[in-house]
């Protein structure tokens, strides 16, 4: 079956612009996670959705970052007024259920964001 997909795979933008990154989770997975990974580092948690609601958004670095999941499936990570420091690979993951520490997460290939 299809895994987690993310689009675009690469995004180059200019400082100050707005970008949207999309994640299509595995069908039927209720939990969805966004991470950011800088070069040479592990993934950094941003936000976690259980269904349509953001169960934990404590990892969002500031109010320029926002994410939605209106129908409990596809999610969009939105970044306003991009800064060069936002350049990273943005990873999305889904799991069958949330709320448990034992759920394996299935990751997408990521979107590489470059802010010039």
């Amino acid at each position, binding site marked *: 079956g299809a895994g987690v997909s993310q689009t675009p795979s690469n995004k180059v933008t200019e400082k100050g612009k707005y970008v949207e990154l999309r994640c299509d989770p595995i069908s039927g997975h209720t939990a969805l996670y966004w991470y950011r990974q800088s070069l040479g*580092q*592990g993934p950094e948690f941003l936000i976690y959705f259980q269904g349509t609601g953001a169960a934990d958004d404590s990892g969002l670095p500031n109010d320029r970052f926002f994410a939605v999941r209106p129908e409990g499936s596809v999610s969009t990570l939105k970044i306003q007024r991009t800064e060069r420091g936002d350049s990273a690979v943005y990873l999305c993951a889904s799991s069958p259920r949330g709320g448990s*520490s034992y759920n394996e997460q299935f990751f997408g290939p990521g979107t590489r964001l470059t802010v010039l």
Partner: protein
Amino acid sequence: SQQGEEDPQALSIQEGENATMNCSYKTSINNLQWYRQNSGRGLVHLILIRSNEREKHSGRLRVTLDTSKKSSSLLITASRAADTASYFCATAERNTGGFKTIFGAGTRLFVKA
């Protein structure tokens, strides 16, 4: 902040040798997971060990957990060139929404053919 810290940061071995990577963490955990990341293939879950387990095996992988030392190790036996990847430990941190996964910085393993 990152919970798990891997050691070594990088490891280069010959095919057929064993590779051992270590992870230390700071707070109490329910479980610890190991992931592998190949360039172009994304993160893949390898194995999960619960806090009441001390050792777990999966194929050529052996994971140990010492909760008294807040550390875990991942052993890959009879390594292959295809094992070349970055390996991350991850712990689940409880929060109001359930759990969020905290990754370490990773160990970069290079297996020479």
